[in-house]
């Protein structure tokens, strides 16, 4: 009898791997929330951030100058012509109030032969106002610059905030897709006794797990295309490196996060339990791994840990590829970190995984 069963003439589409992968697609596209969080949300986020942090022309700094005496009025007159300054002439108490509320960045109080600057030196506007006002007043008083300088203005795409944040969002999306995508689906199947039902059939267990990886692979291509495509369309965000390299970086990190999702889901029986574990895993990376701001803002002692996180490595490799056009050798260290997470999490997950 085993002989007659071993010959299998079914077309591939009727076999378990294809059918299980189809189930993954069907369950995903029939869940409108999942489609929204995967595709629409990152675009909306990128649009919002792109508008909020769009590059503005060099700001004009507003300052206050106290009027009343002849010396003071002449200072007001001199500053009116200075470049990059808007001068409000006001009395003492109005000036104090304006400084406190941030309406003006600095207040000039002139006296015969000198001036006092009142400003908050911890605010960048205060410091730049001081430099501008001082420069204007010293020149008007007859200062000659001992060295001649020239300026050339460089505003390049690739160095704007939107350029920084799009690769971060892509990395975050890949992490969410892997961890949420596998974690929830597997724990839900275990909770419903469906995993047990599946292993009571001759289904090869590897096919069940592989179906998740295949469907992730497909949706990953879509995610990259949608996010990178719309960032290029709306904001001119560049992809300077090779598209193949970008894809390899995305794929390896998607596999690593898939492994982590599998590991998180390997034993949990309840949705609450697995949600807690997933948030515990992802929350530190949202903050530390340089999604919205550079991870170099964190103290030096924490850097070895932060740099070893899979999302940090992913974001570094994505930025190097998209923004700097770096080649394979530049992203190799990041890929190695991602690869280590991939191997360790898969190995542990397969060891711990509970089917029943």
């Amino acid at each position, binding site marked *: 009898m*085993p002989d*007659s*069963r*071993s*010959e*299998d003439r*079914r077309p591939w589409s*009727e*076999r*378990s791997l*294809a*059918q*299980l992968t*189809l*189930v993954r697609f*069907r*369950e995903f596209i*029939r*869940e409108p929330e999942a489609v929204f969080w995967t595709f629409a949300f990152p675009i909306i986020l990128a649009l919002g951030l792109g508008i909020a942090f769009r590059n503005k022309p060099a700001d004009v700094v507003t300052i206050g100058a106290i009027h009343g005496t002849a010396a003071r009025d002449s200072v007001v007159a001199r500053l009116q012509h200075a470049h990059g300054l808007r001068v409000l002439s006001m009395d003492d108490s109005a000036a104090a109030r304006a400084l406190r509320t941030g309406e003006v960045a600095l207040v000039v109080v002139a006296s015969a032969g000198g001036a006092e600057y009142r400003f908050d030196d911890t605010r960048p506007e205060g410091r730049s106002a001081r430099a501008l006002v001082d420069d204007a007043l010293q020149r008007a008083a007859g200062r000659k610059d001992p060295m001649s300088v020239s300026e050339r203005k460089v505003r390049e795409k690739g160095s704007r905030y939107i350029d920084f944040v799009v690769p971060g969002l892509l990395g975050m999306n890949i992490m969410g897709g892997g961890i949420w995508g596998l974690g929830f689906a597997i724990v839900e*199947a275990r909770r*419903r*006794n*469906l995993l*047990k*039902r*599946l*292993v*009571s*059939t*001759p*289904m090869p267990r590897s096919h069940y797990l592989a179906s998740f990886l295949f469907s992730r692979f497909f949706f990953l291509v879509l995610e990259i295309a949608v996010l990178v495509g719309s960032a290029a369309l709306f904001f001119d965000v560049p992809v300077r490196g090779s598209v193949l390299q970008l894809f390899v970086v995305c794929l390896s990190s998607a596999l690593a996060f898939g492994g982590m999702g599998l590991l998180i889901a390997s034993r949990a029986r309840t949705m609450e339990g697995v949600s807690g574990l997933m948030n515990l895993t992802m929350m530190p990376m949202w903050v530390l791994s340089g999604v919205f701001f550079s991870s170099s803002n964190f103290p030096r002692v924490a850097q070895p840990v932060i740099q070893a996180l899979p999302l940090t490595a992913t974001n570094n490799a994505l930025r190097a590829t998209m923004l700097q056009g770096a080649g394979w050798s530049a992203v190799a260290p990041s890929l190695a970190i991602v690869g280590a997470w991939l191997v360790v999490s898969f190995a542990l997950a397969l060891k711990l995984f509970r089917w*029943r």
Partner: protein
Amino acid sequence: MANVPALKVEGLRKAYGDVVAVDGLDLTVNAGECFGLLGPNGAGKTTTIEICEGLTDPDAGVVEVLGQRWDHDERALRERLGIQLQETQLAEKLTVDETIRLFRSFYVRGRDVGDVIDVVQLGEKRSSRVGKLSGGQKQRLALACAIVGDPELLFLDEPTTGLDPQSRRQLWDLITELRASGRSIVLTTHYMDEAERLCDRVAIVDHGRIIALGAPRELIASLGAEHVVEFTTPEAPPGALDATRLRAIDGVMAVREHDGRWTLEVANLAQTVPALLAELQRLQLGLGELATHSATLEDVFVSLTGRQLRDA
């Protein structure tokens, strides 16, 4: 091959911590037979059937399914079995057709998906999502997933629990048809009418052991009483009626009392009921309710354990 039993279990034992779920259980299910494990909730039926299905490891004992063992032949064995678990919630977002097609894909050989849908009478629901099905329809879908691999042996764990009477009858007809097609079936149930109606033989299970085994008719006959008489005497003072007095009535085989309700096992109603009424009259006890029914497996369970199946 015909002589190989569908299922052979010897000395099965399984404990969860201090709780002994299965306590030295032996049974043999013949090929082509429909065999029932009947017992109250918590008797160890599900643990037993899941060990037989290769889903739970026993602490001790031997299980042979269709002449094969789980430790060597798991993959080959799974091709030959159909399994319905007690509580499986199939994916709600898939349709009936997609679900059965998925399960079909796991078997090298099996039945046509459309045929199976017709067999379980879900033709009209073919394209409906699983989440929209009624309880009975879901249970028939679960049965479809169990038979789509064209199994030689079918395990059904509580196939009709929680269903309305009409859905239960529909499932009974399906199971009867499956048995008629020559498959061996092992099912668990805590409904005695289900076991009586479907099973060639039943094992009554209590506290992880088999306490009675045989064809339903034989087990009922073993009571020695064809009928059961139940009555109450609402106004009788306590102690006015006792078991010895009742047992003395002609044709009474056994007497039990529970919450003021008397139960007599009797051989012949025409002989015993008039005698009972005369006795009550002689004692000047008013009769409350009086009911009689033919003896069932429930009565067998009660006579063996002193408890009702339902509240055991």
